[in-house]
């Protein structure tokens, strides 16, 4: 469809010939200053660096990647991490094991609220240090209640434990019926067969609907570009686990996927000085968690009334 040849693409001719030139100049001047204003308003974009790459932008969804494509993605991540941190990491795509369903049990009688788990988690999982992102929040609860509205988050005594309180660390509860998975508009977060709810950091669009949906305040957002000191980087990484994240995506506790899918305990469990934390395969009747769930008289799923059915259980010794 040809545009009529008489139709000028340029300026209108509202008057005679003499006016047309002036009006053309005026239109051009307005147009040019408009463009200049637009360019000026977009000037902050000059400071944009390492926001994305063509490879990352075009990358397919995790579940649709073939093994060869996955291998390339892992190489890309290793390359990027090395460029940024000067450390060549080992990034794996660890799959869930057959016959394994992970569960966590936490002994509220033993926990002393020292927050060692909080910091071990940050070190293991390559969370941003400034601003610091923590997956575990320890609540100081007055004796006699499980109402989190009565908890204190920012307790800071010289010595723990304090009289009259018990301590309840809360992290991702790895729900059987996770509200965060349901609400994600792009399937960027899902539950794996071993019970771990994971996030594809390269697929998340950062709408934070999952963060609003989580009843345990377990999800964290990268409000700005994460920063980790080079010498603090943990080079043992997993795609769905502790590889460094980018600005604008969600993250959360993933039961240390890079450890637990390789037969090790989560970092928070290993560091716990009182042995309050127990982790294992609930499908294995000989595992510690299976024993606890079978024999302990009292165990609690936090906010049980919401029907989320956490795989994180709290129990008391007595």
């Amino acid at each position, binding site marked *: 469809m040809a545009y009529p040849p008489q139709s000028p693409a340029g300026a209108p001719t509202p*008057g005679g010939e003499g006016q047309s030139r002036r009006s053309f100049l005026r239109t051009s001047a307005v147009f040019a200053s408009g463009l200049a204003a637009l360019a000026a308003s977009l000037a902050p*974009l000059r400071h944009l660096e390492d926001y994305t790459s063509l490879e990352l932008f075009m990358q397919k969804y995790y579940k649709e990647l073939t093994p060869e494509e996955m291998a390339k993605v892992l190489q890309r991540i290793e390359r990027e991490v090395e460029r940024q941190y000067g450390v060549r990491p080992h990034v794996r795509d660890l799959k869930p094991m057959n016959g394994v369903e992970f569960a966590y049990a936490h002994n509220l009688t033993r926990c002393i609220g020292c927050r060692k788990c909080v910091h071990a988690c940050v070190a293991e999982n390559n969370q941003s240090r400034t601003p610091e992102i923590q997956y575990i929040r320890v609540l100081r609860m007055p004796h006699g209640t499980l109402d989190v509205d009565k908890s204190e988050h920012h307790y800071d005594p010289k010595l723990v434990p304090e009289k009259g309180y018990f301590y309840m660390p809360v992290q991702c509860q790895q729900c059987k019926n996770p509200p965060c998975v349901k609400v994600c508009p792009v399937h960027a977060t899902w539950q794996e067969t071993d019970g771990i709810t994971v996030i594809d950091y390269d697929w998340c*669009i950062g709408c934070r609907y999952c963060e609003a949906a989580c009843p345990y305040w377990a999800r964290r957002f990268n409000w700005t570009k994460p920063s980790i000191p080079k010498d603090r980087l943990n080079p043992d990484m997993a795609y769905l686990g502790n590889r460094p994240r980018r600005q604008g995506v969600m993250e959360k506790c993933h039961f240390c996927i890079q450890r637990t899918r390789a037969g090790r305990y989560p970092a928070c469990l290993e560091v716990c000085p009182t042995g309050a934390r127990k982790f294992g395969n609930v499908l294995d009747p000989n595992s510690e968690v299976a024993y606890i769930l079978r024999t302990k008289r009292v165990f609690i799923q936090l906010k049980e009334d919401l029907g989320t059915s956490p795989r994180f259980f709290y129990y008391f010794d007595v």
Partner: protein
Amino acid sequence: MRKMVHDYRVFLWRCLRLAFAGDWRYYAWMGFLTVFCLLGLNAYAKQFVQGLVVTGMCDQVSWGVYIANFTFLVGVAAAAVMLVIPVYIYDNEELHDLVIFGELLAVAAILMCLAFVTVDLGRPDRFWHLIPGLGQFNFPASMLSWDVIVLNGYLLLNIHICGYLLYSRYQNRRPARWFYIPFVFIAIGWAVSIHTVTAFLYVGLGGRPFWNSSIVGPRFLASAFTAGPALIILALQIIRRVTDYRITDRALLTLRSIVQVSMLINVFLLLNEVFKEFYSGNLHVASSRYLYVGLEGHHALVPWIWTAITFNIVAMFLLVLPVSRSLRWLNLTCVLAFVGIWIEKGMGLVIPGFIPTPLGEMVEYSPTLNETLVCFGIWAFGLLAYTIFLRMAVPILQGRVCKANESGPVLPPRVRQPNAAAATP
């Protein structure tokens, strides 16, 4: 076929030209809005580089004024049906020609909604993950995927209806009923759906008792059908003043009765909610306490919500009294209702849902300057879009710009003159 395409292109070209034609007041207004658009764009560019850390949001309060404005504007868009229903279901002649103004407002409001959602995304570069077929669309599980469908569908429906009616008028042809009446009726149902789905976005979250209440949906609709027509009453009077387009007082008073009934229902539903929250006194009342009276020494929202409630109740009384039959009082009432509902639906609904957090932590929220500039930018963009739509629609509806005066394919310079005349009262 070729001719049809060509004719349509000429029409679009003339519309585009119209957008740039006007007297000094028009240029001043558009220039003013453009300045705010650019300020907003600049603020957004900063946010794009540094991340959402430049906003007042945090992990505790993870949605703020962006989503608040989005929620409110979905209501404004939905309220266009309040003009459509009287015309197409009750054959109200008074409002007939005004329907297009309402629908154009809906288009502008949806554009603003889409902008507000986009600026709230952490990774706007990955928006394509949301496109069905191309990305991974979590439909029907995620309410956000429903929202993507209903908002974009509503946008297309309204663009089609307005565009077709205007083009028919331009060609001086009777619009073919089968080509727009079915869409009008679909759009009526669809308008209710956009606001219901947006309400369900919140209602569906079991972990947030403040939102997880079945009254949120009905309240959304009642407040939308108050604030939307209130805005249209004001907009129509501005149109009447700056153009010579004839809009009768009776049409405005018809809209008044819509605002009247909606406001009564809105305040009634509010009372229901307040009663349920406070009388039973269970543990889930913390967010409401924070909103209405403050909690544990935190009460940033208390003055806002009481301002909103005062505005709403004053507006309600003015609406039921005969005094609001006078336009001056009606305008005051509309401003009160609009501002009251903006506060209540925006800040009053979104923010307290996060306070206290599900783990009982109290963290307050207030928007930063940068965030506020982005909001102003989007509002300016919406007003700019609406002004341009009206600038195109008014002369076409008046028959000043039509196929008959195309006078050949070259854009006739005379287009400017009737148009300039249109701009002077």
